[in-house]
């Protein structure tokens, strides 16, 4: 798509894009290029000399059981966050689309967690589940469940999943609600006249119409779980216990900043970049398709 009417100036357009481009180059392209460059190098323990080692950092990475474990944990974490978040939001949005009374109030009361920073959301839930003072910990103890996420890996995972889903529900909810409201009423009425009950109508008429958009949300939620949940992990479990919640992004930070392993951390950055690029391409192909309908 192009504009038919344009202005002419030899210098003005360059001046207008310059600020955006300058920041992009200094803070995005240059660091990304450096990450790629460092990933082919090995630095000695004192940071005095560096040596070009080709793909050795990558080979070490994929032979490192800790890294492979972190990969598996990230996969599990992002699938749990995306699937639970989408299922709960779809249920709530379907119900909110049905009710006439109080629809706006429900909406307002469900969207505010979007504004809560992931790290703050994590602290809220970590307090409820705190091993000694947590109120949910206390309730669980009453029914015979010993809860201590500081020691139990699967409980730590449950905590970060709950906090991440809680924050993301409002986002998914708004998208589902917008789409549900755009489903033509005539389709639903036609199905109702043909004798289909509410459940049948949902699964045979509404859900197929939502399926492509659900896929879009799935990708967005995966990206969220991969990258934006850093704050959730750092504020609560810090990757522990014993690496049970160490997602890839947290490992890049940990290896680069805490362990000062520049080459290894940079190689991990490059792997992550490839993952984001893949996810973004999938997302945009989908958007393109939607536009051409």
């Amino acid at each position, binding site marked *: 798509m192009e504009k038919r009417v344009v202005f002419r100036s030899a210098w003005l357009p360059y001046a207008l894009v310059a600020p955006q481009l300058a920041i992009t180059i200094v803070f995005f392209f240059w660091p990304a290029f450096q990450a790629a460059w460092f990933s082919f190098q090995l630095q000695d323990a004192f940071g005095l000399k560096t040596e070009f080692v080709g793909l050795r950092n990558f080979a070490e990475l994929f032979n490192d059981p800790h890294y492979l474990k972190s990969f598996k944990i990230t996969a599990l974490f992002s699938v749990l966050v995306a699937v639970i978040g989408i299922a709960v939001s779809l249920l709530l949005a379907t119900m909110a689309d049905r009710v006439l009374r109080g629809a706006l109030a429900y909406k307002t009361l469900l969207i505010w967690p979007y504004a809560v920073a992931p790290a*703050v959301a994590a602290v809220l839930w970590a307090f409820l589940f705190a091993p000694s003072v947590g109120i949910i910990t206390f309730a669980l103890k009453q029914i015979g469940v010993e809860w201590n996420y500081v020691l139990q890996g699967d409980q730590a995972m449950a905590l970060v999943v709950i906090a991440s889903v809680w924050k993301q529900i409002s986002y998914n909810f708004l998208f589902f609600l917008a789409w549900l409201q755009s489903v033509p009423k005539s389709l639903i009425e036609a199905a109702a006249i043909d004798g289909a009950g509410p459940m049948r109508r949902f699964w045979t008429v509404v859900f197929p119409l939502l399926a492509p958009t659900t896929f879009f949300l799935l990708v967005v939620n995966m990206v969220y779980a991969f990258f934006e949940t850093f704050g959730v992990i750092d504020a609560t479990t810090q990757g522990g216990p014993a690496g049970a919640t160490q997602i890839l992004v947290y490992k890049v930070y940990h290896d680069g900043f805490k362990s000062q392993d520049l080459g290894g951390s940079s190689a991990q950055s490059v792997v992550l970049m490839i993952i984001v690029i893949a996810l973004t391409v999938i997302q945009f192909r989908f958007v393109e398709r939607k536009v051409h309908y």
Partner: protein
Amino acid sequence: MVENRPWLTFFSHAVLIAGVVAVAFPLYITFVASTLTLEDIVKVPMPLVPGPHFWENYSQVLTAGSERGAAAPVGRMMFNSLVMALVIAFGKIAISIIASFAIVYFRFPLRNFFFWMIFITLMLPVEVRIIPTFKVASDLGILNSYVGLTLPLIASATATFLFRQFFMTVPDELAEAARVDGASPMRFFVDVLLPLSKTSIAALFVIQFIYGWNQYLWPLLITTDESMYTAVIGIKRMITGGDALTEWHLVMATAILALLPPALVVVLMQKWFVKGLVETEK
């Protein structure tokens, strides 16, 4: 509503109320904890109704901070968060709107190349280039400064896209008329395009304000000076490790303070927020 099914309506309300309660529960408990003393909280289970220490706890964190963890006053941190959120929101909008204006309303060599460069930044979140970006900031000497907190986060592919999409829908006749009347491009931009873009600007502002306020990884990396902490970082620094040692009543008061401004923005500017959210993802 296609048909009247009282039981289903009842069920819908029940599910929604359960959802609202589940979503609000952590916030309520956080608020209650922020009005108690530490002794009340460690006496498990803690009371479920607010206590009388609201002013005490809030004024302590706002002016003095916690005792064991980070000692910086939260008032200062909130000011830092506010600066960060406002500069990022306005900065992103400003540099993106002029860049899209250039890309849509001018033909010049490298136009498409520039557009793709901006597009690719979508695929390079801070999280994947942590260390080199930190190095750049440290080489430029902007650690522990407002410039360092905001400038690296100001480039925005989503805002540039949104304005580009919007400018495409602006009728060509307007630009034509401006040209016939002899208006300069900047004159057209200021007098015609900016007023037309008000809605998009408001919607983007809400989204970017929340984005800026809630930043975590970047401020964590570049602020080592307590007076430069943002509210979100401050909370993390107050949790001293080991939940028996944490001053939960103060942490919870800080959490309420840290989430209130963006939550208010979402609730009060709900219309713009929904519009911004749905449109920036297109």
